[in-house]
């Protein structure tokens, strides 16, 4: 495994880890009281599941040597991370007030981290596709 060929994969993996761990810790959704869950809890769960999938995809992207597979995986990371942007507040409702943690912290943080992942995987996919274009 050459680091030079996997810089984008490593960056994608680290961003996906940040998305997953961040969603569970420092930019998590609102905490429920008395064991009850608020509506934003389900948005957090969805983001975490997507985050885990993105981590696994990034690992495959790093360790699978075939360049075509790497490009395919980076495209799938691009699409999945783009989908994550729409989870909080659009696909799954958050709490009612803008001042609540899920609205003020979880939503912007998830969207920013997912957008970074979109940009990184976008570059990765574009470079991969360009290489194929040149070979053909």
């Amino acid at each position: 495994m050459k680091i030079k060929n996997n810089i984008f994969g490593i960056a994608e993996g680290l961003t996906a880890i940040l998305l997953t761990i961040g969603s569970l810790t420092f930019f998590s959704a609102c905490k429920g009281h008395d064991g009850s869950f608020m509506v934003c809890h389900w948005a957090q769960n969805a983001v975490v599941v997507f985050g885990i999938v993105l981590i696994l995809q990034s690992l495959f992207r790093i360790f699978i040597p075939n360049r075509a597979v790497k490009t395919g995986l980076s495209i799938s990371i691009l699409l999945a991370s783009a989908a994550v942007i729409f989870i909080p507040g659009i696909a799954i409702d958050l709490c009612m007030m803008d001042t609540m943690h899920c609205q003020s912290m979880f939503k912007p943080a998830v969207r920013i981290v997912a957008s970074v992942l979109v940009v990184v995987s976008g570059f990765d996919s574009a470079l991969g596709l360009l290489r194929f274009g040149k070979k053909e």
Partner: protein
Amino acid sequence: MKLRYLPFRNIVKRPFRTAALLLIAAFMTAAVFGGSVAAASLKNGIDSLEQRLGADIIVVPESASAKTDLENMLLQGTPGYFYMDKSNEDKIKDIEGVELTSPQYFLVSANAECCTVQVQVIGFDEESDFSIKPWLKQSYDGSLGENEIIVGSSLSTRVGHSLKLYGVECKAVGKLDTTGTGLDTAIYTTPDTVRRLIKASQEKGIGVLSKQSPDDVISSVYVKVKDGYNISDIAAYINLNIDGVQAVRTRSMITGTADKLNVISGSIRILIIAVWILAAAIMTAAFSVLASLRKKEFAVLRTIGLSRRQLGGIVMTESLTICTAGAVIGLAVSAAGVLAFGRVIETKSGLPYLAPDAPKTALFLLMSLAAVIVTGTISSAWSAYRLSHVDTGNNLREGD
């Protein structure tokens, strides 16, 4: 390789040099843009609060340690409740110089079904109101009906949708404009609906709601003074002649906050200038050092036939590309900080924070971009001149 690709090749092939210069440009843009937007947001917040209050004087019960409680409620949305006898409004209305009065009733905030945070419910008199309805963003057909509410802009409840408070379905019929203050998180309704909410809470056995009904008490009276009368005199008259109340001039109430904001905005401006000067100095030094290191490279280029103009063009294109890329990164980072996390800044600082509108934000963006690009270009101009005038023979004869 075509000559026009040479500057970009230089940038890509020297990743550490490029990264360092990118970082300086990004830092400078982030400081200029982020600082400008943050300062403008704080100014917008206090302006909008001042306009939104609408009244010249707010009268609250003396026992409420008025200023602090009301200011906290207005700025931070901290739910508050205090009551005084309803007859106080009539006494205020009779004072010479008082043009309009409008009572409000603050309900001990209720846990809305959606969230565990408390929501301030404000009962207001529709007929005399002059401070809430003018701020309606989406109009509705007139008076509030049974269980109908107007919601602050921070509540995600849309017009036409319902919100359940103590089991009572309340329909949102209007939404207020954003103020960047605690007023955005409140629910506004009529005293009748407030009565129903109190009853509903009692039926549910929840003891947090007030036992005092809007029939007997009010929380505050918003007062508008007639033109030609001194607002301070009227406030002083109320304080002297009506027992158990405190009249606060709205302007004086927000003066403390406005002063604090002025200090913060001033500090931000000084910081922007300091960062700008520092970044310009670092950039000039960096380009100057690079010029010394790249003399041989440019001497070779001169030998193979590149004109002085072309050599200068290479340096300028490199610096322009790096500054633009750095500026874009800096803009993205600072926009994420001051725009996306504006609510966090507002909540944590307890200060009114209202982001500027899109055209003004775009203006700040373009100004920051221009500031960095111009600074970068000026910083590299001297290096471009030196490298385009290298003494080819001497430089090539010198050993490593």
